[in-house]
């Protein structure tokens, strides 16, 4: 459970005529992690794709074109189709689809082209529609120059003064003008017009009144739009009819291409192929049996070696890291936490996979930080719904954290703190607002079960700070001991006990010494007892720290001295478990007392307001709880915990397998 699964390196060799069936079998087995065949190995070439590859790719290309024409976007996943049927029908289907769509797409393109043409014409004619001239009257003059364009204000007055003869027509708003002048005066006219911000409008070819032409265009346009809509509807119908099949075929063809191109990652000679792969040790026999049953002795699987963790380390030191893939071997519920580890890095093959350990510690930390029945219940419900509905890794991880964190929030909230929504159940000795005082009934301090009793509320987050801080430091120490223990196991597994002793045991000694000193310090600083230098704990603690440091100096060098304060700050860092609980309790207390005070004097609107304050306030704390408790809980794992032993940087076990969404294979 703690270590990734043992991997075996295998060589799969066979004659080329069995390659296709080998590929199928490899994909079916789902346990083969392919290693790319080195391209420069003497006597071998890289394999070439299966013969069907090019034809399948071509089909896929045509299918994707159809997909684009039909504008198929990822809809809600339709009922999966049988892959067998697709294989049988695909060729005919592509041809019939093509012909069915071709006409529609063709007329759609034509319509689009004509519509944009009309649009352009409309834009050209629009300005001229406000002048009462036919189009042919703007051109073909021998002795006149025509200026048509927009001006800022009407220049007629100035034109009148400076030109001998001219004719000007303005639109009703005075912003568009058409000026007819003699050629000889064209320059002068242009100069004047420029002063009025003249910008020319080009007159399109054609004859007749612009307004009438526009009318015609609009008529044609509305007819075209109608047919365009009809085409769209037809396309929509086609899309609906074929979407499931097209998506399924796309998937099926994609799978076929992937399979057909797999030999590119294998080695080949003239008549045979060679595949390098990793297989989990426990699956190897089954794989061999399957191959034997289906392919006889035409394909041979040779076990090269079962990778031992220590060898993996030696190899990594000598020839650089060889990527033995890491396959987590956690039972299923723990797998939910796997992504939390993956976020930092994939564990290496020869290191302990910390998933199972953080799946215990993280929910406990989360529960301690929130510790409130009123928030725990929604956490559990949200987490449960999330696990049912969500598909993506990220959301599943968040849901997992909420679900298991919520369970511990409930447990700690009930037994440890005995509170819901920031109020204790049982009457408080400090005269606070409690559920007992609110409801007017006396809730018990514990539930008696005969042999033993379950306490409801042992501590108050705001009043028992001292003891809670003390507890959180102890939790930190347990966490750190676990981390060093795992580190010790890691080094021992890789390089032997001696190294583990020198590198990690020193820290276990130092931490043990630190624990003795802590006990002493708590007495001196918090309980106010005098500090006696010859106290047994002082001697034992200091002794252990010094011995640990001495071994560390020998094993790891001077960096031990530098890391010592770091260890102290690590321990103190766990006090956040209490601090965050306190801050949340403080906030809840504030909102509770505000809303109670609002209700107390008068009824009516104030009651509604008070309830509003109560709901908004607790919603805020609830969200803050997810963010702060979740993030801080994870941080304690990543920083304080992982840094003591975790290296990561492994490559994930990624077996050849087919994932189907739109198709099913019987």
């Amino acid at each position, binding site marked *: 459970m703690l270590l990734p699964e043992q991997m075996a390196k295998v060589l799969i060799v066979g004659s080329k005529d069995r390659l296709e069936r080998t590929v199928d079998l490899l994909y079916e087995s789902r346990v083969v992690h392919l290693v790319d065949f080195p391209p420069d190995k003497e006597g071998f070439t890289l394999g070439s794709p299966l013969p069907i590859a090019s034809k399948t790719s071509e089909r896929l290309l045509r299918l994707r074109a159809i997909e684009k024409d039909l504008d198929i976007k990822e809809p809600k996943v339709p009922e999966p189709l049988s892959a067998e049927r697709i294989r049988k029908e695909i060729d005919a289907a592509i041809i019939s689809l093509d012909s069915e769509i071709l006409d529609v797409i063709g007329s759609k393109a034509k319509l689009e082209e004509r519509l944009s043409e009309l649009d352009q014409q409309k834009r050209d004619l629009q300005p001229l529609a406000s002048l009462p001239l036919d189009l042919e009257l703007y051109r073909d003059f021998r002795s006149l120059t025509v200026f048509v364009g927009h001006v800022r204000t009407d220049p007629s007055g100035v034109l009148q003064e400076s030109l001998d003869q001219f004719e000007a027509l303005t639109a009703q708003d005075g912003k568009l003008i058409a000026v007819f002048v003699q050629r000889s005066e064209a320059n002068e006219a242009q100069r004047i017009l420029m002063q009025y911000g003249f910008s020319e409008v080009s007159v399109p070819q054609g004859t007749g009144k612009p307004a009438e032409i526009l009318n015609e265009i609009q008529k044609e346009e509305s007819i075209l739009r109608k047919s365009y809509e009809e085409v769209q509807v037809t396309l929509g119908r086609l899309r609906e009819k074929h979407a499931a099949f097209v998506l399924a075929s796309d998937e099926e063809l994609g799978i076929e291409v992937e399979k057909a191109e797999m030999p590119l990652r294998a080695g080949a000679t003239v008549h045979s192929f060679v595949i390098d792969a990793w297989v989990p040790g426990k699956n190897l026999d089954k794989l061999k049996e399957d191959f034997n049953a289906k392919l006889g002795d035409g394909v041979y699987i040779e076990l090269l070696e079962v990778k031992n963790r220590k060898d993996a380390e030696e190899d990594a030191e000598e020839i650089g890291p060889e990527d033995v893939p890491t396959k987590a071997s956690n039972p299923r519920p723990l797998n939910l936490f796997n992504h939390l580890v*993956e*976020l*930092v*890095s994939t564990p290496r093959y020869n290191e302990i996979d910390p998933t199972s350990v953080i799946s215990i510690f993280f929910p406990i930390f989360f529960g301690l930080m929130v510790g409130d029945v009123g928030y725990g219940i929604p956490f559990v419900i949200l987490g449960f719904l999330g696990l049912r509905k969500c598909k993506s890794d990220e959301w599943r991880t968040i849901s997992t954290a909420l679900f298991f964190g919520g369970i511990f929030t409930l447990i700690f909230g009930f037994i440890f703190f005995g509170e819901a929504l920031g109020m204790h159940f049982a009457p408080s000795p400090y005269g606070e607002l409690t559920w007992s005082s609110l409801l007017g009934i006396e809730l018990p301090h514990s539930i008696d079960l005969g042999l033993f009793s379950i306490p409801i509320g042992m501590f108050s987050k705001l009043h028992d*700070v*001292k003891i809670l*801080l003390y507890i959180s430091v102890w939790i930190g120490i347990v966490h750190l001991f676990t981390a060093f223990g795992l580190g010790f196991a890691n080094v021992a597994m890789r390089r032997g006990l001696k190294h583990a002793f020198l590198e990690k045991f020193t820290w276990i000694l130092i931490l043990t010494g630190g624990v003795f000193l802590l006990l002493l310090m708590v007495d001196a*600083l*918090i309980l106010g007892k005098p500090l006696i230098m010859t106290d047994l704990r002082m001697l034992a603690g200091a002794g252990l720290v010094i011995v640990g440091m001495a071994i560390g100096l020998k094993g790891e060098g001077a960096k031990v001295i530098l890391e010592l304060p770091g260890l102290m*700050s690590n321990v*103190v*860092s766990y*006090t*956040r478990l209490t*601090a965050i609980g306190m801050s949340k309790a403080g906030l809840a207390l504030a909102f509770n007392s505000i809303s109670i005070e609002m209700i107390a004097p008068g009824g009516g609107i104030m009651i509604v307001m008070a309830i509003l304050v109560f709901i908004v306030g607790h919603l805020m704390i609830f969200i803050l709880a997810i963010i702060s408790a979740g*993030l801080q809980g*994870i*941080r304690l794992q*990543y*920083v304080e915990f*992982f840094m003591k032993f975790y290296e990561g940087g492994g490559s994930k076990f990624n077996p050849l397998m087919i994932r189907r969404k739109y198709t099913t294979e019987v």
Partner: protein
Amino acid sequence: MALEAGLIAIGAGIAVGLAGLGAGIAEGPVGAAAVGAMAENEKLFGKGLVLMVIPETIVIFGLVMAILLWLNM
């Protein structure tokens, strides 16, 4: 006594306040860089988070000091 309690309260406030400020100053650039790195490679989220929250311990020290002071009030 009232004066003493007031001074302790101010001291506690300074302890947690300045520590928070310090943590913030330290965390800001780290966070910005982490977001930048993540924009290039999403897989760096975990490492970015770890690096970003390292300075946060400073504020916990301040808080612990503040609590210890407050307990003496």
